[in-house]
């Protein structure tokens, strides 16, 4: 009898432990299991590769593959509708425009092999690259180019997909090698916009790119399992230097807490943008590469809702923030504090001095709050995407800092898809902590969204001065007066800072965790992941 009682207690204890493990570990567990077979096959039949330049052919022939963790599923496979940076950075491997950016920020010919511009800057004559093919094996024709550009410009009816392309008057194809694009007004940024993902050249005979994504990039789309994975395969008929690794598996890691487990467990080989704490967690088999994310991280405020419709309140929030402290907590001090919607990679457009407009000043913040009628502070909720650890961490530090001025910041973690639909789409939010990036290195890519009428003005910023300054900048661009345009863009940035449109924080440091079996990762000055440069190192 005694023994049996003992047994009962033991059984109870063990079963309780089991319940715990199942209840709490279930989620992470099966994520890791799914891909456990992949890492073993990578390096088996490669001889040692010392010099990456000439050893590629060897590696290329093998069934090389890499699994990359991405923070969210692609929201669209059609370049025209891919409005998340996390989607665009992947589509960069599948689609190409007439031009494409390289890792030094230069624009190189892609689908076009070159162009000439008329004296007045209105007529661009592109030459189609010889022998270039789509992923489905069909050659790229001038008709495809015409179709793609007209679609983006809204010339076949419908809204222009790229607002800057509404400047296009006509697209002509005088022969089967030449595309002539005529603009309504000259523009110094036209080629840069031709190099964005949205302006990708796609086949005219494929109606639904969502179902059949066909581009000209170094990788072609193979398959996709919603919210789980995307598989890409090297395109062997690529016009340029072909990719090295045959198969790229993209695995969706929607739970930021699961990143380390997935890397350590071998389920993924690479994750771009891990936090410093996560990087410290990883063992010797990983290289941590450091670059910048090329975005402006901030607490974006819905300027149309109370109390953020009050400039004094927004300013108070800016004064209450200690950016350096955020950097210390979230990334061990790495990153560049910024003061407006522009990050340092932009060079001439970037204004470092705006970072000093709001230096931490709790007293001043309190005064401003009192002046605005919130002497006792207030409470608000920030919606933060749950798949970005950096933003969650930043939000937590912000919440702590705002306690000093009596403001209670609640954090609501939401799924990325919900963020896109509720915050970005429906603008149903008070504040959110995210990073906003640029699709080209043109100032407009960062600044056009804050015009009061812009469709992607998700913070509902409305300021006539800003609209005027921005229009002036565009007019200056139209007469190719670059200095003048830069002046006006800088005025725009200054207005954003002076009116405290958002609580600007930093351009984050990008830590890429990559298994030592792979090398060749290149940082871009834009939000881009280029898989074609990766190769197997062992």
């Amino acid at each position: 009898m005694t023994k049996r009682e003992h047994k009962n207690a033991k059984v109870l204890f063990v079963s309780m432990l089991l319940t715990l493990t199942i209840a709490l570990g279930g989620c992470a567990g099966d994520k890791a299991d799914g891909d456990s077979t992949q890492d073993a096959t990578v390096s088996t039949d490669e001889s040692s590769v010392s010099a990456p330049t000439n050893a590629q052919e060897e590696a290329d022939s093998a069934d090389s593959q890499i699994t990359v963790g991405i923070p969210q599923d692609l929201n669209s496979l059609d370049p025209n509708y891919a409005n998340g940076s996390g989607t665009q950075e992947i589509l960069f491997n599948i689609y190409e425009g007439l031009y494409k950016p390289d890792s030094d920020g230069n624009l190189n010919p892609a689908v076009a092999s070159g162009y000439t511009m008329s004296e007045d800057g209105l007529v661009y004559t592109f030459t189609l690259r010889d022998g270039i093919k789509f992923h489905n094996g069909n050659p790229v024709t001038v008709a495809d180019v015409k179709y793609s550009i007209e679609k983006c410009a809204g010339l076949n009816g419908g809204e222009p997909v790229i607002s800057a392309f509404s400047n296009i008057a006509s697209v002509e194809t005088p022969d089967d090698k030449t595309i002539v694009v005529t603009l309504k007004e000259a523009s110094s940024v036209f080629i840069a916009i031709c190099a964005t993902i949205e302006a990708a050249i796609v086949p005219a005979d494929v109606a639904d790119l969502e179902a059949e994504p066909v581009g000209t990039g170094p990788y072609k789309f193979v398959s996709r399992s919603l919210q789980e994975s995307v598989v890409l395969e090297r395109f062997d008929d690529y016009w340029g230097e072909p990719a090295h690794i045959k198969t790229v598996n993209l695995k969706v890691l929607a739970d930021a807490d699961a990143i380390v487990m997935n890397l350590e467990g071998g389920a993924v080989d690479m994750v771009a943008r891990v936090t410093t704490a996560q990087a410290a967690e990883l063992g010797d088999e990983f290289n941590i590469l450091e670059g910048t994310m090329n975005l402006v991280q901030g607490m974006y405020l819905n300027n149309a809702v109370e109390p953020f419709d009050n400039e004094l309140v927004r300013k108070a929030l800016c004064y209450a923030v200690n950016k350096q402290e955020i950097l210390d907590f979230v990334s061990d001090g790495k990153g560049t504090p910024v003061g407006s919607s522009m990050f340092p990679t932009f060079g001439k457009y970037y204004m470092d001095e705006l970072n000093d407009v709001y230096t931490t000043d709790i007293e001043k913040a309190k005064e401003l709050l009192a002046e605005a009628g919130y002497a006792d502070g207030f409470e608000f909720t920030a919606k933060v995407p749950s798949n970005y650890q950096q933003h969650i961490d930043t939000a937590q530090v912000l919440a702590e800092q705002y306690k000093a001025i009596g403001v209670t910041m609640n954090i609501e973690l939401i799924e990325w898809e919900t963020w896109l639909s509720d915050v970005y789409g429906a603008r149903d939010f008070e504040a959110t902590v995210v990073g906003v990036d640029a699709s080209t290195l043109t100032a407009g890519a960062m600044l056009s969204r804050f015009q009061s009428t812009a469709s992607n003005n998700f913070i509902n910023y409305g300021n006539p001065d800003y609209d005027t300054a921005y229009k002036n900048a565009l007019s200056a661009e139209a007469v190719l007066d670059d200095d003048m345009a830069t002046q006006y863009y800088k005025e725009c940035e200054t207005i954003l800072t002076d009116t405290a449109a958002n609580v600007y924080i930093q351009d984050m440091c990008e830590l890429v965790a990559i298994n030592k079996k792979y090398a060749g990762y290149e940082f871009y000055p834009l939000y881009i992941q280029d898989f074609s440069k990766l190769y197997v190192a062992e």
Partner: protein
Amino acid sequence: MQTKKKHSLNLIIGLIITCIMLFLIILGFFYTPYDPTKMDSSAKFAAPSIKHLMGCDNFGRDIFSRVLKGMGNTFVIALATVVIGVVSGVLIGAVTGYFGGWLDEVVMRINDVVFAFPSILLALVFISLFGTGKYNVVLALGIAFIPSFARIVRGEFIKYREMDYVKSARLAGVSHLRIIFVHILPNTMTVLLSSIMIGFNNAVLAEAGMSYLGIGVQPPDASLGSMLSEAQGYLFSAPGYAVFTGLMIILLVLGFSLLADGLKKG
């Protein structure tokens, strides 16, 4: 004689563990060594020491303080869940069990439908409809817990309603309400009490599970589940984080299990 002693051993151990945990939880409401959300960059991932009993997390927040606060949150959520479940469950079970008939059939079939879904799944559906947060989790889990209590109480009522003392009370003209709550309900207490204990444990685990999935308590607030979720990212730099948090869940559940076990047999 000997068996009796062993029984009470479960009870005693359960009582001791539960008392310690309750003491810590109550302590957490009034006092924590540090502010549980106070960040300290010099104490990032500090190891356990006299200053920080369980060390510090990635923001330099004191884990012991967070565990105290987190246990409180978990406890309150579990308690509220059980209260919702028991109150509604007892009402439904008592009425259907006592009166029987078509009402019993209809309500119990609905009950069966709700019961057929795993409670976590049901709660997940609820959360996706009404949004995340503490209170929604309480409501969601509470509703999910109703059927199990309703069943138990109904069974007891069916057993007791044909008893002689109930019949004679009815003949004496005692109102139905009085019979239900004064005559029968106290008799179901032994069964109900141990199922409340088990229900409480399930609620603790369910809350931990929900917060672990990121839909329960929102940061920077803590609960044992959300802390465990955070901790898994720092298993190597701060193993104490996960170990202590997990240990607290185990102790909380173990204490109540032993208590329930002891009460049932003792």
